[in-house]
């Protein structure tokens, strides 16, 4: 994973240096923005016996950004986040299948520097698992997670296109599963995101909404 981060960092840095400061559109205020992303996540849970459980699937991620500080090359936003993941156990076969849906919502903060951005968010998640086969069962649980992400984007007028890497971790408490140990959860994903900038600060945005 460190190797992956390293490669992405190199790529992002080179791209930002090459293009981040040259576009006139980058310099204009972004204002309130909404972001939608589709991602390819890998999710890992660990059983009490130490065995690891891997899932892969599709995630959708929405963020609303409220600018607190916005300068020419720097911005600091508060954000609200909603994330949904549908994933299948990588061990699935004809005899046993397991699928997981996880819906999370929460908030955090994002920092933008030229075309780069970094974020941290805290999510409250609800997970649902369905097992079909030798074991037929369903499970619903709740847990909280802390996620960080790093990415870069290209401003194309009021629309932006970007790529993001995210990683998060949390723990499902025993009270939710009746297992003998809490379940560590970690995930990572690469996202393709598009955002729309309203070019207005928060209060102007609200005023427009209330007109």
């Amino acid at each position, binding site marked *: *994973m460190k190797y992956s981060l390293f490669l992405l960092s190199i790529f992002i840095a080179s791209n930002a240096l090459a293009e981040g400061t040259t576009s006139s559109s980058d310099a204009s205020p972004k204002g309130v923005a909404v972001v939608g992303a589709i991602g390819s996540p890998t999710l890992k849970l660990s059983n009490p016996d130490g065995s690891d459980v891997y899932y*892969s699937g599709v995630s959708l991620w929405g963020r609303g950004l409220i600018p607190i500080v916005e300068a020419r090359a720097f911005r600091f936003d508060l954000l609200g986040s909603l994330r949904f993941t549908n994933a299948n156990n990588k061990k699935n076969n004809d005899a046993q299948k397991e699928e*997981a849906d996880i819906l999370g919502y929460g908030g955090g903060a994002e920092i933008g520097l030229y075309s780069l951005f970094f974020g941290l968010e805290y999510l409250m998640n609800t997970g649902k698992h369905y097992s079909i086969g030798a074991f037929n069962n369903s499970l619903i649980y709740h847990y909280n997670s802390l996620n960080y992400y790093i990415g870069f984007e290209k401003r194309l007028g009021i629309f932006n296109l970007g*790529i993001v890497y995210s990683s998060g971790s949390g723990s499902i408490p025993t009270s939710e599963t009746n297992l003998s140990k809490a*379940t560590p959860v970690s995930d990572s994903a690469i996202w393709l995101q598009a955002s729309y900038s309203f070019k207005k600060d928060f209060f102007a945005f609200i005023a427009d909404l209330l007109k």
Partner: protein
Amino acid sequence: MEQYKDLRFILRLLLAIFLFAPLVACNNNSGSYYAAALGLNKARLLVAVQNTNSNQVVSYDLNGKLLGVVADYSAIGGVPRGISVIDGLRFLVPLNGLDRIDMIQLDGTTSIWTTNVQYTGTLYHSVRDSSGNIYSIETNTLEKFDSSGSRIPTTGATPYVNTTLGACTLAVPRSVVINSNGQLVVVSNTSGAIAVYTVTGATTAVCVSSTVLGAGIGATAMIFHSDGSLYIAGGTNSNIYKASATGTGGASIFNNTAIISAPSSMVELPDGTILVSSTTTASIERINTVGTRIGTTSFIKDGFTANVSAMAIIQGQ
């Protein structure tokens, strides 16, 4: 070149995704299933069935709801006669007729755990000690296997618990437990004797004591309860007895053949109540430690409970 700037960016983006996506998804595909998602967070009742042409291990939840057939030996003629739980997913079953012990997973995966040229007699109950050793009743003896399935002793025809050791004599032993002293306790069907052994010897057990509970009871099952007592089922007289951890002071706590008749196996539920399989009534009944039936109907009565040979609780992970 300025007009191609956006196109260049998009191409770089796609290249980044192409390079990066496999790195994110680099975890191996082996893994496991999530125990809680499969329902392995809940304890299950395992029931070994020895009906003619229906030799199976069946699982129920602790409310008596049928979960399914875990393993079916009907087609190959193996009769499951005992259940020794290893962990939250696996257990061992001696198979009479096949002369072997199989390891079974709750997902139905089975594998031969051990066989041995000395392990060819009539098999009944088995027990697993805290070190993972298995003691399995074979005709009038008990064979011992270590946690890897190797017979102890490794050579010779003499089993670890021979028919006669000191004051202990086995006469058609049917059930075996480990008590709180770490001693092996075996009850015999023909003599009604409860024999107690230490099992620290390298190649043989040592008899500690032998107590006759009742010559005509036809003992078929025994558990070591969390209250520190032994509970023994009389298969012939249909009594349930309570005795000390070494088999002394035995006394009947239940005798009602309309409810329990020809009991064949027992198991303690997590709440301390006791399940008893009743052959004549083709049911599994639930009683407490003073011999009072819980509820007014059978705990389980279905097509699998007509001839139960063994029961066990497999705890959740």
